[in-house]
């Protein structure tokens, strides 16, 4: 039995709800079948507009967004969703090049999959996202939640147990992925973490994860916590090796 199923049983009554934003009805239909097999409840949206409408109305745990949508593009959907909430977002792309992956991540997505995806892989991505998201709710069942005492670096105060980050005393709006990334860096403050290590620890990827995932999130994190994101003083790049949090 897989983790998601375990999670479902723990929640007992309400299976986790996935909002699938996809204009191709056949893909939507098979996706629903496959994800229901994995124990999720699936909400369908065939356009960005209806996705935003559904999200505002329903409780959603994870959103899957196809980047190529008629009308409102996937990027706009991600940006709008991000404005309203920190719901985990996985973008789905059918393109070979990685420009739109990077653009989607910049817009605020947490992770991505390429078509044609293997459902097992997609389910693994969703599980990893949900683990992060549930962990941060701070309940006693949050096994994988980062814990420990508050950490202060510069004007930033990170409180893993509370799940909040403050800068100059003001709470920052970080997504769960950004929060976990920051916790991982803070836990190893002063040490260099390679992109591969971060991919594994934050996203649950093996060695071949996309390094751009890390880079895009680091960029977003910097715009939130650094005084001058173009001259980062807290999260520094160690050329050829990875990233390091300076205390």
């Amino acid at each position, binding site marked *: 039995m897989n983790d998601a199923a375990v999670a479902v049983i723990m929640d007992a009554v309400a299976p986790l709800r996935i909002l699938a934003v996809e204009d191709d009805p*056949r*893909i939507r239909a098979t996706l629903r079948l496959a994800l229901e097999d994995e124990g999720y409840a699936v909400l369908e949206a065939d356009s960005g507009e209806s996705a935003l409408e559904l999200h505002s109305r329903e409780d959603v745990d994870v959103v899957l967004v196809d980047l190529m949508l008629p009308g409102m593009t996937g990027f706009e959907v991600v940006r709008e969703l991000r404005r309203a909430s920190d719901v985990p977002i996985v973008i789905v792309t059918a393109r070979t090049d990685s420009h739109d992956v990077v653009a989607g991540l910049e817009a605020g997505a947490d992770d991505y999959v390429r078509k*044609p995806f293997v459902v097992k892989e997609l389910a693994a991505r969703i599980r990893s996202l949900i683990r992060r998201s549930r962990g941060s709710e701070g309940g006693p069942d949050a096994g994988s939640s980062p814990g420990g005492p508050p950490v202060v670096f510069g004007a930033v105060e990170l409180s893993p147990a509370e799940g909040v980050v403050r800068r100059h005393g003001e709470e920052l709006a970080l997504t769960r992925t950004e929060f976990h990334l920051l916790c991982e860096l803070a836990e190893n403050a002063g040490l260099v973490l390679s992109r591969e290590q971060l991919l594994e620890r934050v996203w649950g990827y093996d060695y071949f994860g996309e390094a751009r995932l890390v880079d895009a999130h680091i960029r977003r994190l910097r715009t939130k916590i650094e005084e001058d994101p173009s001259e980062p003083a807290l999260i520094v790049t160690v050329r050829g090796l990875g990233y390091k949090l300076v205390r």
Partner: protein
Amino acid sequence: MTSRTRGLRFRVTAAFALGALLLFGILGSSVYLFSYHYLVEQRERSLVGQAYADARVVRDTLARSDEVKEPLAILDRVPGSNAVVRWRGRWFGTTVASAGATVPDGLRRLVEAGSPAHQRIDRSGVPTFVVGVPVDEVGAEYYEMFSLLELDRTLRTIRNALMAGGALAVVMAGLIGWTLSRRVLRPVADFASAAERVAAGDLETRLAPGADPDLASLAASFNHMVDAVERRIARESRFVADASHELRSPLTTLATAVEVMEARRDELPDRARRAFDLLRDEVRLLQRLVEDLLELGAAEAGAEAGAAEPVRLDELVANVVARSAGAQAVTVDVDPCFGEPVLADKRRFERILSNLIVNAGTHGRGLERLSLERRGDRLRLEVVDGGPGVPDDERQAVFERFFRGAAAGRRASSTGSGLGLALVAEHVRRNGGRVWVEDRDDGAGARFVVELPWAGEPGTGIARPEVRA
């Protein structure tokens, strides 16, 4: 700068120098000849005049007395000149050496016959001018010898000055030609470097039209060509992107539906299950085929410009082997120097390596040995399998798309897309390297060798070549 422009520039310079040489040669030799004749004539005339004057003194002296030595001593005033008198059949001279013998016979006969004469002779290395004057009144002949050393030296100085001036003129002309040709050829050099930038993948490159109408049309044609290339590449990568999307969408449905069915495979009746297995295998093959085709298309369109980034190649190799090679016993031999990050195109390197390993698995009875080392400015990867090897006449063809060798026409029951090695070749080419296949040293299998240019180590100041198109 290419050798062609250097050649043209060399030719212009040489033409300038040659022109200067020719001009100065004619001018210089005229000047020399003119001054030679002028100086020699003048000097000879004055020497003859002096000899006459001296002869008159000798005549007067001899008319008064029998003593010859005294006037000769008086005469000995012209530096470097020697006077000789033949009187009553005897020679008298200022020095013993000058007595008689040095006067050439022809000259003596002329003077004996009563006509004055002069001649240029070489007296033991010294150019000498001999003047003979008959002194009939006293029945004597007077000879005077003048050294022309001074004149020769003057002439040599003139000649040397002219030659030095000529050499200087040639060098100056060459320099002018070199500078001038650089200015003239600068547009050509600009063209060459612009073309190189385009070839390296920088399609933003355009030439400034410039003022010269001839060059402006050339620049316009060049820019037009680059525009066309850029449009074409944009069209191709758009096609790849579109095709990618159009193929992937139905494949996504297929693959997902197969997965849903796979979970219920045991519920299927026997015949349906057998049909489903076929369907599943073909969908997976199709998926691999489409992935490889799209990857190849993207690689060829240069859509994914590979950039060198610092990579720990030892880790990369270990991970690819762990993922692709399965449970076989593999000897992995990675040079310890790859424990430090080096600059490499990580994605392409991973694709090259995993395709070679997959190829060893599908066609070579499995990967046996893998080695990675540095050889000078190249990085050498060897992938050795234990299969039948590749026959000589197929060693080029295996890197072609859908090449199936002896199994041509028969679709292998196996799993390869037929594009793996073509992908390897394309990625290697894009990285500026070479790939080939050879026999193993013991002849029991094939060895695929990839050589890639060494991009350097990060932070060593070695330029990071952006390996592109």
